[in-house]
């Protein structure tokens, strides 16, 4: 039981890599459109990743506690 749980937990840590992929691969977001509230996509996409990253860290925090 313990080993399977540890495996599950170690998988959860990999979730932390998502913000790196999302923000370091520029072709994902280097565009003006679609804009939101006057912000070009390039800007609101990166701003959006601030709360998303907090959320991801929180999920891992809860999961591995």
């Amino acid at each position: 039981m313990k080993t399977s749980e540890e495996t599950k937990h170690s998988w959860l840590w990999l979730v932390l890599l998502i913000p790196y992929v999302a923000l370091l691969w520029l072709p994902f977001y280097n565009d003006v459109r679609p804009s939101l509230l006057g912000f070009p996509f390039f800007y609101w996409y990166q701003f959006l990743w601030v709360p998303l990253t907090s959320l991801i860290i929180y999920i891992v925090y809860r999961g591995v506690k």
Partner: protein
Amino acid sequence: MSDLVPIDPVAMTVFIAFFVLVTVVGFFAARWKRGDLTQLHEWGLGGRQFGTVISWFLVGGDFYTAYTVIAVPALVYSVGAYGFFALPYTIIVYPFVFAVMPKLWKVAQAKNHITAADYVHGEYGGKWFPAAVALTGIVATMPYIALQLVGMQVVIKGLGVSGEMPLIVAFVILALYTYTSGLRAPAMIAFVKDIMIYIVVIAAVWLIPSKLGGYAHVFDAADAFFKAKGGATGIILKPTQFTAYASLALGSALAAFMYPHTMTAVLSSSSAATVRKNAIFLPAYTLLLGLIALLGYMAIASGIKVHSASDVVPALFGKLFPSWFVGFAAAAIAISALVPAAIMSIGAANLFTRNLWPLMARDITPEKEAKTAKLVSLIVKFGALLFIVFLPTQYAIDLQLLGGVWILQIFPAIVFSLYTRRLNTPGLFLGWLVGIVLGSGMAIAQGLKPVFALHVGGATYPLYIGLIALVVNIVVAFVVSTVTPRRVQVHQAT
């Protein structure tokens, strides 16, 4: 200097009032959560007792500096989207902090480590490699402190006061309360600083776009401005800038918590869980930083022209805010210089006292240790002051750039050592040396620019030099550690 504005008595009064308030707080902090300040872990780490809320303010106040508030909008004003790399940088730093720093905190707490070099000493023994790690931290931090002074100088100039006198007064006061209160002073001042900066930025991003016709108009104005300007500018990146942008963000994120000031703030937390929780909540400051960066575009949209890009923020506030708020904003930025400058000087002083001083002194008692650290914190700040008063600002900017490359070279010794036993001192030492020499060489060859164009199979990838040097460093560290006996200490050094 020719574009000095006339002194506004209201702005000046508000500015001075807040400065006095912070000074009182700084001296009062010595009594806060009372501890024996003749002990280094009390003076230099605040007794390792700061809970989630205090740590949040402290790390936030420490990591997002006055220089950031001035330099990031200045870069965005000059080149556009490229200057925004600070945003992904300060996002992706937190998963790293969450995964790595609590582990380091636990070891540091268990073995009473006060610095990163203490940790390296604890893992590998010896004194020369820990000394090299300490020296890297001190040298990388000095220009960073100097740049905080630049940030302060810019806002004081924005209030219409020229000359170095106000800067000297501010720094002498800072030096005195840091000396008496240690880390408790910036921890307490960070509350005032962070709340003020939040107020200023929220007011700015709320009010300024409405005066300028909304965000869509701000971005359109910036777009038109960069189209007219040409070159590698624009409100989105050129495809040739992709690797530079991403590698600057990643390299800066990996370097960020290797610096002595951020390390000090993390180690002063009361528990590993405090560090983890703060990785969840600290990104709030990143939202703030992103909004601060947008001030660069607002300056463009409001038609501000400055001789030096670093004047855009004070110029923008001066043009669009009432005078009492100009004073408040200037105070917020100036105080934003004090918090990191204090922690940086404490971090550097801790490194010197723990990891360099033992090379030249014997019979070190805890009292002597704390006394020396206090003195060194004074010397460090005084050095930074002399640097800014007597040398061109560009030197500090260039050195800070090199400092970022250098500090990244202690990454394998700190971070990898938490996860693997396969590294040894010769490997890490040689990797560090190769990284520093290679990184400095590339930066100098590029005319002190952070990016180096790497040619791979006919294509060209501009990459952050610090990151290139780190990769070479890591390869050297592992290869040398594999071919040399394990756990060898460097006795051959004389």
